[in-house]
């Protein structure tokens, strides 16, 4: 790794640190106000401003990472899973800085910056090496297309943050009984915690160099080998553990399943579940959203709703431009056709249709407030699905990671 690339990754660490600081400041800004209220002090605390400043500095360092890596590799750093996912998180933070410049909502910071950190951490699970570009990616359209898409998705992600704030603020979370709504909001919390669990697990076991070798029988009925980087709960088909002192599988997967991936999924969802319940029990068995709700006092739902809508109103045209128009121009030049029903293309179209439906429901059917907030959450889920699932599981021209 040359020195510029090293500088680049250090800048990303620094950015991450500032995002962390911003999170702390935002926590103080929302919790701090309450304390003062009890003392009868009406003066607002300044922590929110510090949170905003820390985020801005984080964004500056993050773009420092982006451009130094561009210089180090000689191509825009948006060409594999690590690079794109990290850049999406950076655009998310940039969009937050711009939109929150208008609305100045500290709770929005509290809800979005941790998600941004989570996405960066998730990105770093993938290989961070600068890889040479395959021929079709060597085009100025790569930068134009991907950067526009990332910006658009970053802006749309802000609408998710605001939607989440809206839901936690307005839903009735006090009842003991589970309803569709309380299940939905807790499912979002659980999903975020699963992401966190995945990131922590992969990093911990990578730091300890955990490796377990298996011999197994593959789909073709031949003997083969594979390596697990997490302790095997689910072993490969007829797997035999070859490394000593390693955890022995409890279940064995059939041959047509990629068992190490399933194992990782089981680990993540399992630890996410554990994490969720630990937090819940610490909070005296209240729902996580119910624990957060008191922090959102004084937030006017209409304002958060407007913010969420505004993010979509800005992000949607940009997504149509980058994710469809620029994508078609680029595909026409690089892949000889502007549209080819590649899974990633289809999912970009689905994203487009989804937000189009959102806008029509909102503008013509009066779906504002809660319904609009749920849709903003689902929209972000589609974006993440297209990033993670379509790239890694459904094979296609875009799966380059």
């Amino acid at each position, binding site marked *: 790794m040359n020195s510029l690339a090293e500088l680049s990754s250090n800048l990303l660490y620094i950015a991450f640190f500032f995002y962390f600081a911003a999170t702390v400041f935002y926590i103080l800004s929302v919790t701090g106000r309450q304390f003062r209220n009890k003392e009868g002090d009406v003066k607002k605390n300044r922590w929110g401003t510090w949170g905003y400043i820390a985020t801005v500095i984080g964004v500056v360092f993050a773009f420092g990472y982006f451009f130094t890596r561009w210089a180090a590799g000689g191509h825009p750093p948006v060409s594999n899973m690590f690079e794109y996912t990290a850049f999406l998180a950076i655009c998310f933070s940039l969009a937050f800085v711009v939109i929150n410049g208008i609305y100045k909502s500290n709770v929005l910071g509290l809800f979005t910056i941790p998600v941004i950190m989570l996405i960066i951490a998730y990105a770093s699970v993938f290989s961070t*090496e*600068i890889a*040479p570009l395959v*021929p079709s990616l060597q085009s100025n359209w790569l930068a134009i297309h991907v950067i526009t898409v990332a910006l658009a998705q970053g802006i749309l992600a802000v609408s998710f943050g605001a939607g989440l704030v809206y839901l936690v603020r307005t839903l009735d979370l006090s009842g003991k009984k589970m309803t569709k709504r309380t299940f939905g909001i807790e499912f979002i919390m659980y999903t975020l915690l699963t992401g966190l669990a995945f990131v922590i697990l992969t990093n911990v076991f990578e730091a300890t160099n955990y490796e377990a070798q298996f011999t197994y029988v593959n789909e073709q009925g031949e003997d083969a080998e594979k390596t697990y980087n997490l302790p095997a709960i689910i072993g490969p088909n007829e797997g035999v553990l070859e490394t000593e002192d390693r955890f022995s599988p409890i279940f064995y997967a059939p041959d047509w399943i990629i068992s190490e991936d399933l194992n990782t999924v089981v680990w993540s969802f399992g630890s996410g579940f554990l994490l969720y319940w630990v937090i819940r029990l610490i909070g005296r068995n209240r729902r996580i959203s119910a624990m957060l709700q008191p922090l959102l006092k004084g937030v006017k*739902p209409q304002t958060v709703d407007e913010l969420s809508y505004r993010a979509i109103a800005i992000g949607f045209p940009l997504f149509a431009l980058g994710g469809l128009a620029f994508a078609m121009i680029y595909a026409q030049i690089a892949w000889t056709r502007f549209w080819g029903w590649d899974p990633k293309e289809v999912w970009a179209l689905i994203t487009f249709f989804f937000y189009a439906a959102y806008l029509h429901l909102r503008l013509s059917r009066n779906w504002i407030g809660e319904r609009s907030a749920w849709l903003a959450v689902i929209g972000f889920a589609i974006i993440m699905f297209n990033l993670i699932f379509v790239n890694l599981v459904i094979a296609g021209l875009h799966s380059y990671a």
Partner: protein
Amino acid sequence: MKEKEIICECGHVNPYGTEVCGSCGKPLVKNDSNELLNMRYEGAARRSQTYNKSIIDKVWNFFSSVKVGITIIVVILIASALGTIFPQELFIPPGQDAATYYAEEHGWAGELYYTLGFHNLYGSWWYMLLITALGISILIASIDRFFPLYKALKNQRVTRHEKFMSRQRIFGRSTVSDQDETMNKAVSLLRKKRYKIFEENGNVLAEKARWARWGPYVNHIGLIIFLVGAMLRFFPGMYVDANMWVREGETVPVPGTSQDYYLENLQFDVELYDEDDERFQGAMQAAPGAEHIETFRTHSILYMPTDESTVGAGRELEAISEQEIEVNSPLYFDNYSVYQLDYKLNELSAMSFDVEDRETGESAGSFTVDLNNPEDYYTLDNGEEVYIYDYFANFIINDAGEPTTENNVPDNPAFIFEMTNEDGEEELTFIRIQRNFEIRDDEDDPHQYAFTFAGIDTNHVTGLKVRKDLTLPFLIAGGSIFLLGLLQGSYWPHRRVWLQRENDGEILIAAHTNKNWESIKKEIRSVTDQTELSEPVDQTDEEYEKEYKEKDNL
């Protein structure tokens, strides 16, 4: 039957179905309520909301419904997602039969997928039908809304009914010492904020970016042009999509051009990334032995036949241009594009053979066969001739057990050579790579002439894609109009502020915007801060306080 028109107290004649008077804004339905006014389409009458008699009315109403439009969008969305569960037919490995592939690869689910026709979902008649329905819905819904909205905004009067004012989301009542002065000050402040000012009887309407309201209709026009453009592809002559493989040194007609153009592959190159490139060390060491292709390109010459030459072999060609065709850098000519898509390195191009005369023990000579263009016979040094009795470019034994060729690509060439020996007998020899046997009448009687395989020559083949797409201009026009309309409708808010004098020295202020209320409130605040006007309230604040004040204090 002509429906009854609605005459408002201000004297304006509104068409049947109007909810808010097009002139003064008096609410015509539920006019004793104090709820906020529904300002969608300005409360104008729309055809679809008014008539429901004839078949045409019913079809019109069906497609003009946004609910129906959204349903179509959602159905397309779900259908599109279904198409990505398993790969579409065009992505399954070439040569595989879809009928068996899905069942073998994905079990019963795959079989179901195939049976339902989802393997070719995006080309299915019902997917096309859905897209068509969406197009019709867009068209009718836009017409149904645009004209009433346009008229309503054009006819709006400055002076509004008091109910109209008080039922706006932003509304305030101010007592001022001097109505004239306050009004003038407010107007000049609004003007500075780029509002267009309309005055009537001392009342004011300040408006900006009304044109943003046309955005949705502009983008829908763009979409319709795009969809029509996409449909044009099904007309013959609009669209060409052909593959061509050209060996180095070969000149072939460009498929799809009715032999109007020929292309020669002078040279084909593949370039790899430098393994010592400092930038990529980490990635290259992670995948040792992997090839990192930097680029591949065809050095080509494009020809046109001269006018005199007739169609057929041996036409006289005239070079038009010489160009490198590379990934991301196609060759463009006369509505055609030729793309670098694929390649095949080191395809066999020629084979050489030595022939020995077993009688004398000396060499009878050598010959070389051009595998893509073999001669009928070759003359050896000793004057004898070798005939090609049979040639299989890509040798296989077929189901009937007979030797044959799979295609004419020389991947596995095989020959049967024929020579006549001194006794006048014909000798047949079968040769392919690592196989060589003489077809003898008597096992123990070897031929006079013995063939041995002497060497091969190889050649690179470039894989090119030829395209012509005359629908592109429509798609570009439609796409651009769509994006501009989207921009127009999304990035500019239509804002209106009404200032109205009351007899008792009061001034009423009301405001409406189609989006971004926080921003219009900020603008009005800066006006009220600098005048005697008091800041109007956001009436949703009252709702909010009613609902949350108690809860928050718990």
